[in-house]
């Protein structure tokens, strides 16, 4: 244990003197500035609206408006068909019109990702579509994916999970790989492996160091944007597990590459793959299965739930389970590759 503490102390000294702390804090502050001042507070994305209505609706609507609705290309025969279509298209909303007290009654079916502005805009559009006739007093909002609504969050703050995800996954992956490959390039690994120190202790010390930096970075970003809003414990758990598996993955790549130069290409490819789910955050309709399979996709949704939806933990646990599995897989990969690759470095 004392050896591990010495190794961690050494990592902190070296990373601090290599300005890692400065770099990490600078990136975190830049991201905070981008969220606060560059990303607009309101964003509009084209959303498909699926419609259905009962035959009674014809009696309470102007015939022109009714005809316009039923001839719409997104008009479907039943509410079930609307829901089925929505499940196939994440970037869609549904409207089921019925009659209540001789007035059109609106049931708005949402995915659960939409914010308040999008919902209000959808209702206003439908009202306009129906010829601005008064609706029955209470419209009803039905959510397909319960616990995913972040309706009250401004758009700029709603992107906070993205930098946290990217920092915890990419920073662990990249910086730790650089740390290890530099040790190989400078041959300091050789000096370590001829001591009683174990390879796993060396690798763990690096993982622990990156874990600290990941917590620091996430705390700065969340603290300066959302304050104490959301579930910090869940957020830090996800950041921590992600930092561990991405560090293990970074070390695995570094173990198998002879130098920093040879490690760069696989690191860049893995980073691009891991960053791909960002697209789905902005355009939920673009969530093909290969993106949903990536750990950063579930992490992104898990972080959003942890920070914005205190009433639910479904996505948090999904992300945590996935991360925990990856910690085991990449941890084992790191140990095996380290055992066989670092000895002769």
């Amino acid at each position, binding site marked *: 244990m004392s*050896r591990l503490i*010495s190794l961690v102390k050494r990592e902190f*000294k*070296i990373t601090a003197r290599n300005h890692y702390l400065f770099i990490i804090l600078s990136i975190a502050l830049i991201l905070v500035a981008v969220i606060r001042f560059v990303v607009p507070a309101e964003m509009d994305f084209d959303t498909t609206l699926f419609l259905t209505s009962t035959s009674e609706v014809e009696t309470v609507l102007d015939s022109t408006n009714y005809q316009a609705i039923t001839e719409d290309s997104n008009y479907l025969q039943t509410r079930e068909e609307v829901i089925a279509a929505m499940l196939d298209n994440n970037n869609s909303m549904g409207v089921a019109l019925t009659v209540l007290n001789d007035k059109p009654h609106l049931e708005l079916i949402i995915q659960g990702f939409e914010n308040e502005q999008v919902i209000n805009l959808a209702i206003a559009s439908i009202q306009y579509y129906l010829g601005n006739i008064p609706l029955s007093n209470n419209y009803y909002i039905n959510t397909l994916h319960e616990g995913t609504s972040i309706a009250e969050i401004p758009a700029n703050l709603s992107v906070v999970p993205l930098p946290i995800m990217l920092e915890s996954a990419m920073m662990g992956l990249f910086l730790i790989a650089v740390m290890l490959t530099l040790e190989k390039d400078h*041959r*300091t690994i050789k*000096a370590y492996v*001829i001591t*009683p120190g174990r390879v796993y202790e060396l690798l763990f010390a690096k993982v622990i160091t990156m874990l600290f930096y990941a917590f620091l970075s996430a705390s700065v970003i969340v603290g300066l944007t959302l304050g104490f809003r959301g579930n910090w414990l869940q957020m830090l758990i996800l950041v921590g597990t992600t930092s561990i598996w991405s560090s293990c993955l970074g070390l695995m790549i570094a173990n198998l590459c002879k130098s920093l130069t040879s490690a760069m290409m696989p690191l860049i490819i893995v980073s691009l793959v891991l960053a791909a789910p960002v697209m789905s955050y902005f355009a939920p309709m673009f969530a093909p299965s290969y993106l949903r399979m990536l750990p950063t996709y579930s992490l992104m949704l898990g972080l959003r739930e942890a920070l914005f939806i205190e009433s639910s933990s479904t996505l948090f646990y999904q992300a945590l389970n996935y991360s925990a599995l990856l910690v085991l897989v990449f941890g084992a990969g790191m140990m095996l590759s380290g055992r066989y690759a670092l000895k*002769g470095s």
Partner: protein
Amino acid sequence: MIKVKNLSHSYTKDDNFAVKNISFEVPKGEIFGFLGPSGAGKSTTQNILIKLLPLQKGKVFIDNENIAKTSKELFNRVGVSFEHPNIYKKLTGVENLEFHASMYNVPTEDPLALLEMVGLGQAANQRAEGYSKGMLQRLVFARSMINKPRIWFLDEPTSGLDPGTAAIIKEIIQEKKRNGTTIFLTTHNMQIADELCDRVAFINEGEINLIDSPRNLKLQYGEKFVKITQRDDASVIERRFSLLDKADKAQLKEIIERNEFETMHSQEATLEEIFIKVTGRRLT
């Protein structure tokens, strides 16, 4: 002690051996020189002995432990001074030694005392990135003593050092030998081997050609010469006379009697000359 039996190693894992069936023993308290040119198999052998390379064929015992079966705890008794200055340049000299001291489970040397010993006391708190090549070399050398090793591997320990510092390093090595440390010295510097080693092994193309003390090798393979310088008008002429050759001896006697020389020195064969004679190759 170090015991190596029928050691072979092939990087390509076929019959292309970098080290071929070598055997030797280094008793406790001996300085054993492992001499050979680049690519002869010196580093491969040392790397197997310190477990940086896997043991493929043969047996190696370090401090009476079979390295095929031993744990990393063996390194508590082993020190290695690398030729390449592989130290943490962002740490100071003393931080480097303190860090390495914390890796061992045995009592260690005082880092500052070690730095003083190798002449780095003044630079102890300076980051190693500001050290010269010679200072880095001394830091690596000091680091290899941090755990008070019983078996000490030295790879070109005086490489890049000025004569004064090299003399200090050689004195430290002699002192450790007197205290019972077994020293495995890898070098292609025949002068340092001659000065320090109790025995030397000549390795060439992966094979050990001979093992003996420098003195015995000189007696066995060397030829005694006398070198004189003579003045011929404005130029100085250097001539060598073999003390085993009758004609040479007679000619030398005549020169001495006529006092036709400026300087005279007896000359033994150097280890380098013996190496060339035995292996047919130069060391550098």
